[in-house]
Every structure is written in C-alpha cells, then in structure tokens.
C-alpha cells in the first residue's frame, strides 16, 4: 500500500518548512541588506497568506455590523463572527461554544476575569496565587483587584538557576484560603513549560479557581481545556498567525454565568430601561459594542491554518528548534542562558558577557535578525534573576535550523565586534 496516501499528523512528522515559508509573504524580504531572520515570535507571529486573504475577502464581500441588521451583509457578518466562536471552541475543545468570549487579547481576557469575576467573588483577606514568572499582564490586573477588594497576592517561587517553578512546595502555597491561581502555561522569558494540568488538578481539589495564561502555548501545540480542567484560559490571536486586536477568553459556563458584565454598551444587553437594564446571555454579555469581526475572521483562518499544519507537529518542531538553539548557545563562551535545560519551549533567553542586550539586538538587526532585547514584560522576574534585560530568540514553525546556525554565527561576530 502506498504509505503516502494515508498520512495523519502523527505518522508523518516532518514539516515542509520551505513550502510553509512561501505561505508567509513577509518572510521574503531583506532587512538592512540581509535576508530577514524573524526570531521575535513570542512577541508576535507573522501571518500566512490564508489569514491575510480571509480578512481581505471579508472586507471585500461581507463587511457589516453583527447581530443588528436584517439585511444580507449583516447576516453574513454575524454568521462569520459566530462561526469563529464555534471554531475557537473546537480549537481548545471547550464543551460549549458559549464558553468563548472574544477579547482584544490575553491581557483583556485576564483583566476581564480579575475585574468582573474577581470583584464579585473575592473578599478582604482572600489570597490570589500567581507565579514569579508571570507576564505583567498576569500580575497587574490582580494587583488592581487586590487593591480594590483587600485581597493578598502571593507568588509561587521560581528556582533561579533552572527557571522552573518549585513544585515540591506547591502544597505550601496552594492552601484553602487561596481563591484563584493564575499562571502562565509557557513562560515568554524563560521558555519554561509549566505542568498546567497538574496545577489545575491540585487547585480543583481545593476548590481554587484556575486562570491559565495561554498566550505562548495556544498555536504552539494542542490545547484542550477539558483535559487541562482549567476554569479560565486566555490567549491572543496575533501570537498564533492571527491578527492583532483579537483574542479568546475561555470560561467554564457556570463561572461565566456567575460573572457580572465587564463593560456596558450595545450587544451585551437584553433590555435597557432608563434606570435598569438586563444582560444578554453568556458570552454576549461580555462583548459590549461592535466587536472585531474581521479579527475573528482572521483568527478563524489562523486556527484552520495551524490545524492544517498540525499542532502536534508544530509543538515537536518548536521544541526541536528551542533545544537546538539552547545547545549551540551553551557551547559559546561568555553566554549566560536562562530557563530550563531541557523540556523548553521554542525560545531561548540569554546574555552575552559585557555586551548589553540592546547593543546585541541593534547589531543583529543590521544583519537582518529580528531579536528581542529587554525585560519582556517580566520586570519582577528580571530583578529576581539579577539582570535588567535579556536577549531573546523565539521561534515558530516557519523558522529553520539554518537560521539558528546563522544566529550563532552572528552572535560570535557580535562578541568579536564588542571586544575588539
């Protein structure tokens, strides 16, 4: 039998990266006279032709407001918008389509949970558990909540030299006075992959609500909210081949129902009187005003695209690139690496002795490399690690092993340049 004819994702592991690259128009360009090597995917990913075209098509054929008009275009826009919701539910295996709330991104999703759910359900003296590796967007909304209701924030410590959370002490932190445990699935500055399912299980047994920041994991591998058994989960479209300005907040049905509205306006109401209004059903009560319809259309195309490539394959390749980069960097002299030695996501965070991350990134840019240098919106973690910033290369499935080799070459040149 022809083995080619029945290829499922698992029995055909190789990604055809060269043909994938051709589907990303932006990759085909020179920057500062050199071919672009885009290694800032943890900040934002690039978009395939399929996503760009879907957005164009929507504006060229179907654009109108949703849920309001009776006319044909409004019907089409509403259908496209709700189809995106159904697709998102399927993408993360939510039990109900109504558990999908469209947001501007991860940040807004977490703010929604902290402000709307948190203000209703947390009281003075309650504890909020975060981890020391959270992005500012999973710290500051909780600080605002804590201040509002008098709750207290605690942090699950990071083991400094390996960038892992200290799981042996989870019981000390996950106590019955904790009301909510919010943590990142994958760290954007260390590349740590946290045991999200284990966290959710331990939290569930104590009745603690879990909030998963999936900004770095959605689109980088399979994601199943029922398997994770989380209560809330947030991600951003733009980090997974979709457009900016659109994201998803997943919330368990009964929790969303027990959450008051986040913002008021059109679309989120059932009836409005001058003095009293009643709310639309979940999830519409969280989506005030005209939503980002073309964003949902683009996100839908991105989810289709990622599944066509295969999320297991993407995850495997991502890890391969991360491991390759880590091993090569570890071989260089004068490089300090951050994060776990093994089992890391597709990114590396490092410092070069006597070369500030911003100088390194500026020089790399002159060679066409898009790296990130900075605190990666993890200021408290940087402080804990005793650094102000790191340089970071973050990968996606359109990056190649050759690009990593060239990055290593350019880093050696940079080292020579600054020590001349």
């Amino acid at each position, binding site marked *: 039998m022809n083995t080619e004819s029945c290829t499922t994702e698992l029995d055909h592991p190789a990604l055809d990266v060269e043909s994938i690259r051709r589907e990303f128009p932006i990759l085909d360009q020179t920057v500062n006279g050199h071919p672009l090597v885009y290694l800032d995917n943890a900040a934002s990913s690039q978009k395939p032709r399929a996503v760009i075209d879907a957005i164009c098509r929507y504006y060229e054929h179907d654009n109108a407001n949703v849920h309001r008009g009776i006319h044909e275009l409004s019907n089409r826009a509403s259908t496209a918008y709700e189809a995106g919701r159904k697709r998102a539910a399927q993408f993360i295996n939510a039990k109900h389509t109504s558990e999908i709330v469209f947001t501007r991104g991860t940040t807004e999703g977490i703010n929604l949970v902290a402000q709307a759910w948190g203000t209703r359900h947390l009281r003075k003296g309650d504890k909020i558990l975060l981890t020391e590796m959270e992005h500012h967007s999973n710290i500051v909304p909780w600080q605002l909540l804590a201040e509002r209701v008098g709750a207290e924030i605690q942090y699950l410590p990071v083991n400094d030299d390996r960038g892992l959370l200290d799981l042996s002490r989870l019981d000390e932190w996950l106590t019955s006075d904790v009301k909510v445990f919010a943590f990142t699935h994958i760290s954007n500055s260390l590349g740590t992959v946290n045991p999200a399912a284990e966290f959710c299980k331990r939290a569930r047994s104590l009745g603690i609500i879990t909030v998963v920041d999936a900004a770095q994991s959605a689109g980088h591998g399979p994601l199943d909210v029922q398997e994770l058994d989380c209560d809330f989960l947030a991600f951003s479209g733009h980090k997974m081949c979709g457009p900016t300005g659109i994201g998803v907040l997943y919330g368990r049905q009964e929790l969303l129902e027990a959450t008051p509205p986040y913002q008021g306006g059109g679309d989120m109401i059932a009836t409005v009187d001058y003095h009293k209004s009643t709310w639309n059903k979940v999830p519409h009560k969280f989506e005030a005003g005209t939503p980002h319809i073309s964003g949902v259309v683009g996100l839908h195309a991105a989810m289709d695209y990622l599944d066509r490539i295969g999320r297991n394959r993407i995850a495997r390749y991502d890890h391969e690139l991360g491991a390759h980069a880590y091993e090569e960097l570890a071989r260089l002299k004068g490089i300090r690496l951050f994060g776990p030695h093994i089992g890391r996501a597709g990114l590396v965070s490092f410092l070069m002795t006597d070369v500030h991350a911003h100088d390194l990134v500026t*020089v790399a840019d002159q060679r066409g490399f898009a790296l990130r240098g900075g605190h*990666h919106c993890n200021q408290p973690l940087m402080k804990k690690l005793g650094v102000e910033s790191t340089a970071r290369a973050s990968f996606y499935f359109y990056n190649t092993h050759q690009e990593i080799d060239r990055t290593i070459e350019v880093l050696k040149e940079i080292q020579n*340049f600054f020590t001349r």
Partner: protein
Amino acid sequence: MFDDLNDLYQQVILDHSKCPRNFHKLDHATCTAQGHNPLCGDNVTLYLIMENNVIKDISFQGSGCAISKASASILTDSLKGKSAADVTALFDKVHAMVTTGKAGGDMGKLAVFAGVHKFPARVKCAILPWHAVVSAIDGNPEPVTTESQNG
C-alpha cells in the same frame, strides 16, 4: 566586518562604555538626578557639585547599554567647568546632532554620537544622561526618562 555599525559603535564609544570616566558617586554633590529607561533597563545617576552656577565636579553611576554608558561618560568629561547656561546650550546641540546627524559647530569628542541618528531606536539611549543633567541643574527631583512607552 560590521562596517555599517562602526558609525554607531565608534571605538571611542566602546572605550568609554568599557572604562567609563568619572564613574563613581560624589559624596558632596550639590545636585543629583536620575535617568531611567525601564524598557531598556538603562539607568544613570548623575552627581554634580555646582559653585556659582558652574559645574565644579561631575560624576555618574549606573548601568545600561554601550551607548548610554559612553554618553554619560563623555558627558561628564565635557561638562566640567561649564555653566548651567552652557549645559542647556550644549544639550540643544547634542539633541540636534543625535537626531539629525548634523553637528552645529565643533562638538569635540561629542561628535562621536553623530552616527546615532541612523539608529532611531537608540537616540533615547544617547540622550538619556543629557536629560538627566539638565534635570539635575533644574533641581528636578523626579527621575527622567526618554522612553515614551513602557512595556
């Protein structure tokens, strides 16, 4: 190798960033000011001893990229003996130079920063200590920043 970058990272700049001059605290400073770009992590504290409106001594401490460190180091070298009015005038010239690449008159050692204008993202690094020194002389206690937006 990296010929294009030699404009930005001139040897003088690398020297000053590796061995910054006047890199210490002044115990009897009459004014100090802090410049901080949280996004970059560039952090500079300037110490001045002013007498009759003239800079008698000046030093700095801090950490940051090569550009900000060299800029602070060369600044301290250039400002000893200058009056407050000289500093403001020089600030304007340096600002113009790092944003346009054109030096107004003889900038002396400061001319090495003319290449920064080709790297718009790095102008804020070069100019940070200058904002801080003007702020110190104005007696402004707030740390200054040259970043418009923080992550």
